[in-house]
């Protein structure tokens, strides 16, 4: 099923939108999601880091994601 992935900062500029419609296979992991995004948008792989937030919480690589979750890409943060 398709999900809308929220995008911010340089990830938003690389992908060219603040939201990306993306197909997420059932029972896929954060790592699999990152791999598929990086293979479609190779510039994402050049970032110092790229985390995934699931329902507003930092997710680990092995965490499962589903299309009902709120998913966001978190490029290197620089607040303050």
């Amino acid at each position, binding site marked *: 099923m398709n999900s809308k992935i929220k995008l*911010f*900062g340089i990830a938003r*500029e690389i992908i060219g939108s603040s939201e990306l419609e993306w197909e997420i296979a059932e029972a896929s992991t954060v790592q699999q999601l990152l791999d598929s995004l990086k293979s479609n948008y190779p510039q994402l792989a050049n970032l*110092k880091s790229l985390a995934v937030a699931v329902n*507003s919480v930092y997710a680990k690589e092995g965490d499962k994601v589903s299309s009902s979750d709120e998913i*966001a890409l978190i490029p*290197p*943060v*620089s607040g303050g």
Partner: protein
Amino acid sequence: MMFKIVDQPLNPQEVIDLVAGEEAGAIDVFIGTVRGSTQTKKVLRLEYEAYDAMAIREMEMLAEKVKGIWPVHKIAIYHRKGVLQVGDIAVVLAVSTPHRKEAFEACQYTIDRLKERVPIWKKEVFEDGEEWVAAHP
């Protein structure tokens, strides 16, 4: 509300007032402002954006962690987003504690961790280009 992301100019006194109280013997305040240069380049402005809901949640969790380390009375953090000019205030953090030593320590720890974890981003705009801060190795 002790934690806020706002798109209007910040007033430090408003944040200080949030942490005041009879239990406070010290209030330490950190104010982050927009610097006019980076290395050798002149900065025209900064553009901030935030994942608001997650940023608030991360700030709340950070405050809970800090309260577990120091005897903190209250913590408040207001962070601005949008376009900021040189000299503008980007963040105001206020920590109140019974004594000054832990106020200094808790304040420094909080701003250091905020910069590492809270989902807020800034782009530096120069005369001849622009750059997302810390994005690349």
